[in-house]
């Protein structure tokens, strides 16, 4: 390789920086709608990283399912709950858990980084050819992993029914308070 910075490195650096900034914004933003939008930015930058790695189909699924369906679900829930926005967490400036969360996150990252930097990845058994062939992906998903695929579809159906049952307004219950 030349001393020149490759396009992949530039792509990773830019997308990674955007990803981290948006993730921090999504976590610590008080306004949940802004947090959801930051989450979209994070997911899109991750899709760009997947694209840079050569996994086009995964990038498309990331945009379509994650940034599309899941965040839309989030946004709808945020709008349904707009009257119950938790400004409460802002009224108390300090929760005991704030310190605990910071410590846990710092220790977790230190442990992970130590494991990543000190350990050595095993040498690839097969030559790292670019496994981006959509045929190979279809073969893996619909032949080798057919049973997990079907189980996942049943799980999605069950989750859908559960969500409807949970979020349904019960007739015995009072209406939304303070509409």
């Amino acid at each position, binding site marked *: 390789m030349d001393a020149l910075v490759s396009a992949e490195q530039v792509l990773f650096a830019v997308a*990674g920086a955007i990803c981290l900034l948006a993730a921090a914004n999504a976590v610590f933003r008080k306004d949940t709608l802004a947090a959801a939008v930051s989450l979209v930015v994070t997911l899109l930058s991750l899709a760009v990283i997947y694209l840079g790695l050569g996994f086009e189909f995964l990038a498309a699924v*990331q945009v379509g399912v994650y940034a599309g369906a899941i965040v839309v679900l989030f946004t709808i829930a945020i709008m349904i709950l707009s009257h119950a926005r938790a400004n409460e967490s802002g009224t108390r400036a300090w929760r005991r858990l704030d310190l605990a969360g910071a410590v846990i996150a710092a220790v977790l990252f230190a442990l992970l980084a130590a494991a990543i930097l000190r350990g050595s*990845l095993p040498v690839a058994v097969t030559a790292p050819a670019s*496994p981006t062939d959509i045929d190979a992906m279809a073969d893996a998903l619909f032949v080798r992993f057919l049973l997990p695929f079907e189980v996942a579809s049943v799980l999605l159906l069950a989750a859908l029914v559960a969500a409807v049952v949970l979020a349904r*307004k019960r007739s015995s219950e009072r209406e939304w308070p303070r509409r």
Partner: protein
Amino acid sequence: MPTTAYLLLGALLFALGAAGVVMRANALSMLVSVELMLNAVNLTFVAAAKRFGELDGVIVAFFVIAVAAAEVAVGLAIVIDVARRHVSVDVDRASDLSG
């Protein structure tokens, strides 16, 4: 790009998400943080798939996305139910079991 860089980015994202889950009292923000953690794991799987030239990591990432969709649907339904009972999505308020 070395695989280590992708793994470190994943670790950083995961730690951020973990911090959010513990520190935020807003149930919606906690769910957003959980999504960040799932995506960090996905990035790790995909980086490994690239490193070893195997598709298995990508397939796992697909399943994680499917499970995340289920998790978000049920999680948001629970949050809506909690908000209906407590007028608030602050998890510190939803402490019925502690009496």
